[in-house]
């Protein structure tokens, strides 16, 4: 853990007065390595360490803490401040309210769509799941199977229906069935795929989601920032769902994205079952990043 590494580097002396410049250099090297190992984007690490260094140099070491613990305290506070930024409220206004899930292939959008449908049902709303991925084999079957297990209706359009049309028809189906929230599960796509990025932009223009959630796999590496920026440029992303946090990936992608785009994590996927969804709490992820 970062605490252990800093203890090795800075020793266990308590109440040493002020943190020396040499101590800070050594500590910042450890912080940098720990964050890179946690998949925090290297540019974000650079800025983050600079901020921590500024606070650490000459910092008064509290009598009850070692220099190492003092640095960990500063790092923890800075992590929380980045992760707590942005509007973390989950908005459900609109008639119907539209939630769109977007992201790279395999990140967990379809599973998260079902989880959100269950969460929204528990809030007393009546969601309709819309299978707007016509590309992946059995994608609509997957969403339909999940919806059936939750007793939540799923709309799917005939094969060959263009994606924007699927979204529109989904809205009409919601109105017909008096469902007041539409959850749009979209196909995984690469940010370098111009046609598919244009498609998702067209869908957003057509149905105007109140929430567009970028679904990000907790094991994502250095590309997290580029990917998030590209999605945010194409559609009005309002927050992130960080999935597969039940593994041991440190989730530095979330910190990276929040730091650069200001987008907050709103939910975390904590398992494969439909009840494995948690509302995001910054201190849980901050602790994870400290190892």
């Amino acid at each position, binding site marked *: 853990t970062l605490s252990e590494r800093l203890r090795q580097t800075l020793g266990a002396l308590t109440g040493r007065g002020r943190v020396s410049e040499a101590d800070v250099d050594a500590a910042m090297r450890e912080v940098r390595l720990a964050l890179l190992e946690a998949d925090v984007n290297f540019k974000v690490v650079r800025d983050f360490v600079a901020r921590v260094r500024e606070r650490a140099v000459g910092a008064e070491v509290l009598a009850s803490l070692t220099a190492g613990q003092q640095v960990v305290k500063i790092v923890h506070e800075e992590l929380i401040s980045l992760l707590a930024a942005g509007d973390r409220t989950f908005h459900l206004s609109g008639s119907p309210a539209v939630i769109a899930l977007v992201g790279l292939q395999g990140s967990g959008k379809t599973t998260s769509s079902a989880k959100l449908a269950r969460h929204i049902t528990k809030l007393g709303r009546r969601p309709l799941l819309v299978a707007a991925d016509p590309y992946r084999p*059995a994608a609509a079957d997957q969403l*339909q199977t999940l919806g059936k297990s939750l007793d939540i209706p799923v709309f799917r359009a005939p094969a060959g229906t263009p994606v924007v049309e699927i979204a529109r028809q989904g809205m009409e189906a919601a109105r017909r069935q008096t469902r007041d929230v539409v959850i749009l599960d979209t196909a995984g796509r690469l940010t370098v795929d111009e046609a598919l990025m244009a498609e998702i932009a067209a869908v957003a223009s057509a149905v105007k989601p109140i929430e567009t959630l970028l679904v990000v796999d907790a094991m994502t590496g250095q590309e997290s920032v580029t*990917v998030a920026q590209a999605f945010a440029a194409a559609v009005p992303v309002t927050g992130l769902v960080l999935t597969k946090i039940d593994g041991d990936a440190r989730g530095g992608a979330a910190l990276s994205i929040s730091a650069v785009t200001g987008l907050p994590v709103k939910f975390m996927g904590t398992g494969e079952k439909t009840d494995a969804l948690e509302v995001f709490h910054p201190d849980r992820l901050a602790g994870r990043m400290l190892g």
Partner: protein
Amino acid sequence: ILGVGGPSEADWEEVEETLIAGDVGAALAMAVVERARRSRDGDDPVAAVRRELAALLASREGDWHPRPAGPGLPAVILVVGVNGTGKTTTIGKLAARYRGEGRTVLLAAADTFRAAAIEQLQAWATRAGVAVVAHAPGADPAAVVFDAVDAAVARHSDVLIADTAGRLHTKVNLMDELTKVRRIIDRRLPDAAPETLFVLDATTGQNGLAQARAFHEAIGLTGIVLTKLDSTAKGGIVFAIEDALKVPVRFVGVGEKVGDLIPFDPDAFVAALFA
């Protein structure tokens, strides 16, 4: 052409940053740069680092083909990895590739857990023109594989490819389930030495090494498929994995269509890190 007096500190830092940006990992990037500085190419940072990176990659047999479990017996390929990396899609691509080579292929739908996993594999099987052995959802994956091995032997299939459910390597019960599947194959075909392919998503960061290690320790990996290299990610964690486990990347996934699977080219892979 480098400036007079050789490469600057900034030149070396820039190369190290390129490696980190490509998910090589900070510790390995630093070690590679250290070796490169002391090497005979030490006056050309990029060339020296490329050389050191290439040296990390496992030695590989020129043109790998699946090996039969014995005379007249099928070659068995077991496909494993964490959730969402592209296992099922890769199997569809492999099935089409082998069928194109004139081999008979049978698939085993041993992901009996995830919603519509069996339907997804069946759709790929239809696309590739091959048969699938499947049970009902919720069945024991080992039972599916057992039946599939029997079927492959009876039908004289050339290749049997088993799809398994994605699983996080930290889940002990799921890793035990995989060990049981592997035992079933070993018991039924004692000389099979199945090709066990670990499917890794190229956008994965440092967790990829922990994943590969855990799967390798549980059932022994013999190959890696690196998927989604058509994204902007470089898949740099592969260097750490090949260096630590000596398991070679066999194929690279470069898209979602049936033909989007190419043999791994180590030189191109190293070069792409600097592209």
